[in-house]
């Protein structure tokens, strides 16, 4: 019948109008900034560097400046310069670690490819700034945040990472202890031999893919 479609439409609108007063499904506005919505754990915004210790963030960064994230970053927004010691030899620490967040597209590939769980995604999004250039280049000091912060924002993930790292450390310690006892035994049986091949110094485990991020 003519006009019935129109009347049906009016009925739907009226239902929504009346429902908006008592049914939360029909009043879906979250009045930010007075009310903030809870973000899911997986939410990602810009990266940050994980530091083991909150008191000494610069000294306990997990990052060893392997340059993998710099290479894999699609828009090439990471800039790393390795630390060198007094003799010019490479030390496994970054001297400069800059991320240009005006270029970063929050794709999370740097987190995925990092073998050392050193860079993770932060959840801060209220970082608007009035300065166009300086404030948009985050340096090592701005990026470093402690592992406790990582636990706060991504509890499940942080727990998994900690478990894996602890396992790696335990394995490394076990291998080291085994190698040390072996070399002790070798020294004891062949004191004059200089051809005992000394076992290779225990290295960090081969890069394992990080847990589902």
């Amino acid at each position: 019948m003519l006009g019935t479609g129109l009347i049906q439409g009016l009925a739907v609108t009226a239902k929504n109008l009346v429902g908006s007063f008592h049914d939360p499904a029909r009043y879906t506005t979250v009045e930010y900034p007075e009310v903030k919505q809870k973000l899911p754990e997986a939410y990602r915004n810009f990266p940050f560097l994980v530091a083991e210790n909150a008191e000494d963030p610069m000294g306990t960064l997990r990052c060893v400046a392997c340059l993998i994230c710099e290479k894999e970053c699609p828009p090439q927004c990471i800039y790393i310069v390795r630390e060198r010691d007094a003799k010019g030899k490479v030390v496994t620490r970054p001297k400069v670690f800059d991320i240009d967040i005006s270029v970063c597209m929050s794709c999370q590939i740097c987190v995925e490819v990092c073998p050392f769980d050193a860079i993770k995604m932060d959840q801060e999004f209220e970082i608007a700034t009035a300065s166009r250039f300086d404030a948009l280049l985050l340096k090592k000091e701005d990026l470093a945040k402690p592992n406790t912060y990582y636990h706060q924002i991504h509890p499940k993930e942080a727990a998994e990472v900690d478990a894996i790292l602890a396992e790696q450390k335990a394995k490394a310690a076990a291998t080291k202890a085994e190698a040390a006892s072996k070399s002790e035994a070798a020294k004891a049986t062949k004191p004059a031999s200089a051809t005992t091949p000394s076992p290779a110094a225990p290295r960090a485990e081969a890069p394992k893919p990080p847990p589902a991020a």
Partner: protein
Amino acid sequence: MSAAATTDAFLERAPQLLRDAVTGFLPEPWRWIVNGIIAIAVILAVFGLLFAFLTLAERKILGRVQNRPGPNRAPTPTLPFLKFLGKIRTYGLAQPFADGVKALTKEDVVPRDADKLLHFLAPVALLAFSILTFAVIPYGRHLVPLELDAAVLYFFAAGASTELAVFMAGWASRNKYSLLAAMRALAQLISYELPLLLSWVPVVMLAGTLSTTGIVEAQAGWKWGFIPHWHVLTPWGFCGFVIFMVSALAESNRSPFDLPEAESELIAGHLTEYSGFKYALFFMAEYFGMIALSGMAITLFLGGWRAPLPFLEFVPSYAWFAVKLITLLLGFIWIRATFPRLRMDQLTRFAWKFLVPLALINLGTTTVWSLMAGSTALQIARWPICLALVVVPFVVIGRTLSAGVAPRTYRYAAS
């Protein structure tokens, strides 16, 4: 205004008493003049405020229909030493005033080649004619600003003059796009004048008078003690009311007939070259038109200031008028929230091929109704006859017009 009958309730006479208290001491010609000025001032103030809160109500209701709050952040104005005022939550009530301040302080841009006098006059004329129409609507038992014998004619004459101002606006801008848009808007307005006028001719026929107070008088009394004699509760009255409201929607450029003033896809509308306060005046005139037409619809069809049931007569008449007015205005907003726009040619086709024939047939229905007003048997018989005379043309003409348009069923691929 007519002299108050002393048998009315106090609330009913309150406006009169108030006015007499203020001007009662003045000598005769001055008293008449000052009474007139008071009436004008009251109408401007009341309907000005109503316009302001109507815009707010529209935005909030539109918001609620769309699952969101409307505007609720407008703060009260603060002074350096009264900062706490800004923290009070007004739930959006300060929004119309904030909008007013914005409109007043915006730069008034007039195109260099524009016809300056017409450019200035257009919004003024529009608003003036819109406000003139408020003079003959009876707001209460003793609250008619101007009692005219040909009040309805005056109302629609003033209302039709507003269309001139629309064209003035388009012409004065010296912009061929706004001229084209103004012509389209004018085409829409003229097309809908005819159903608008034809829809109240039956009312005047049966009431026997063009005077608005007379028409309200004709709707007095209750049938069987509880059904009021309002015109809308008769078949021809209902048809007339619906045609009137649809045409009122189109006359005030409201959705679903707002193509001339919506963000027109190519042409920016006849209001392109207006900014700031003049734009606000156009806006105000549109809403005043809406309010005035609603007021007239109430007078013609809904029994004016009359109460719907006898025991509710203790509520003053102007309160009833206000209730009915607000209901109609909310209906306008509800329709805006729901329906999409009609295209220009569909709009005009709807007016000429659907509304005008229905309105003309309605005249016939009213004649049948009034001729069958004799004995009780005839009075009972006229109901089904007039109902048929209203419904059958509606269905027939509607079916013919929407011939090519129907819900479809779809087939699925056979795999």
